């Protein structure tokens, strides 16, 4: 090898190759760690809970005897809560994102609001629970009801839906707007015929992902006073309620070993629901995503 040449010597090349392999190893180990933890979790839950998982488990109310315990009230509670949360959070979230992206003037105030939306998405759910307790349960006198729970949950996931919808709207190229404007469309016609069709897959993906966060949500609903033992089917939005994760939490905190297994069975059901929702989000994203 020549001196004063930019060509590296063999040793230097060997060192680089080793570093290259090392980097790959570190990243692989990082990934492996996550996979092992996930597998351990699944194995533990399934071996523990699968024995209790039968039709009775889905159709029974909670019980003092582990073999009779079921998640009927919890599943119904989750469905009731979601049937309020989905329309409320979608209507408010999509309206907010359309206003911010399409109508709001680009000034400091708008930027301030957008920044705070992103911050809200990171606020711990307990804080939202406290807000729900103060505003819905006490101030608006909804009591510890499904209605109060649904509204609290809507507030909790609203920022995430707004941020996801804003991203989906912002991804639409200006040329699409130009085409519609140039034919004499009004802003509302453009929102209806260009913006919403193009943004819907992104909005739905974001909504489903945040709703699946909501399905697993415990802290905020405990704050507003969700119950842990319910032996009736809720008949209206003003009834008390419990939801799956709270039911699981209450079983898991009992001393008897059998209830640990019942909690595991509940976790399996919750996991299945979450996997179904996330799969749905992926399918929507893949099938309806548009390339411009």
């Amino acid at each position, binding site marked *: 090898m020549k001196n004063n040449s930019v060509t590296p010597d063999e040793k230097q090349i060997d060192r680089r190759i080793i570093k290259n392999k090392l980097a790959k190893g570190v990243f692989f180990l990082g990934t492996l760690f996550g996979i092992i933890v996930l597998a351990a979790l699944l194995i533990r839950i399934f071996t523990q809970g699968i024995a209790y998982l039968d039709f009775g488990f889905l159709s029974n109310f909670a019980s003092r005897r582990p073999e009779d315990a079921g998640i009927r009230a919890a599943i119904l509670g989750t469905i009731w809560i979601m049937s309020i949360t989905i329309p409320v959070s979608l209507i408010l979230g999509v309206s907010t994102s359309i206003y911010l992206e399409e109508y709001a003037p680009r000034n400091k105030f708008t930027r301030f609001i957008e920044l705070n939306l992103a911050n809200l998405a990171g606020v711990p759910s307990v804080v939202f629970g406290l807000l729900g307790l103060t505003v819905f349960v006490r101030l608006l006198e909804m009591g510890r009801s499904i209605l109060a729970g649904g509204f609290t949950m809507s507030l909790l996931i609203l920022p995430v839906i707004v941020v996801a919808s804003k991203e989906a709207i912002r991804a639409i190229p200006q*040329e699409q707007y130009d085409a*519609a404007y140039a*034919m*004499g469309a009004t802003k509302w016609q453009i929102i209806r015929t260009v913006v919403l069709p193009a943004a819907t897959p992104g909005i739905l993906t974001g909504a489903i992902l945040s709703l699946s966060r909501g399905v697993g949500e415990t802290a905020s609903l405990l704050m507003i006073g969700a119950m842990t033992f319910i032996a009736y089917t809720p008949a209206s939005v003003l009834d008390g309620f419990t939801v799956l994760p709270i039911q699981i939490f209450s079983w898991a905190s009992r001393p008897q070993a059998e209830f640990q297994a019942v909690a595991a069975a509940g976790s399996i059901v919750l996991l299945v629901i979450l996997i179904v929702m996330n799969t749905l989000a992926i399918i929507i994203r893949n099938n309806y995503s548009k390339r411009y």
Partner: protein
Amino acid sequence: MNNSENKSLVYSIKDLNLWYGDTKALKNISIDIPEKEVIAIIGPSGCGKSTFIKTLNRMVELVPSVKTEGSIHYKKLDIKKAKVESLRTEVGMVFQKPNPFPKSIYDNIAYGPRIHGIKDKKTLDEVVERSLRGAALWEEVKDRLDENAFGLSGGQQQRVCIARALAVEPDVILMDEPTSALDPLSTAKIEDLIHELRKNYSIIIVTHNMQQAARISDKTAFFLNGEVIEFDATERMYSNPKDKRTDDYISGKFG
């Protein structure tokens, strides 16, 4: 083509000035544009030619910081007093990059009539066929009208955009460098199409390509730094430019 003085005007522009924020983009533009002719707007990048044609259908107002002065009359109507929605129904536009909607070919063409309230399926069918024939695309796509317009080639997409503009039955078609993203073959097809369209429409076309302007236009306006340097019959301007700068640009000394 020297009888254009006798034709009625589609546009009469007087002392048009335009600013983007503090930057002046158009300076004292006063020109009259006759009906049923092809007007080419040429000039180097950033000379204001795109800005100029976007003032004609008020698309330029979509830029938040824009400010205009002076007057633009479209067939004796002050466009500032017109509703933009009805102005843009009479003045269609085709853009630099083909921008069909991510919808079927049919829905792309029917978009304009639909937003103007036409729902009748038979009427829409007729409009779609007439517009696609007008854009010389009918024979190529008549069997796959329900396919996504994104599946077409770039040149076909641009003709979809022309057909889409024709579907609202405009009098004027503005074209902002409609062939700059296309290959030579597609460009030739669009140029042939412009020849056909000039029988029924007034066309104002911005182009980077001086040969294209020479091939397709009746009159040419040469823009430089936001000013109209020269506006004349294309043949006269290319063979005998009055201004030294026009001569320099046409002969390729700059730009």
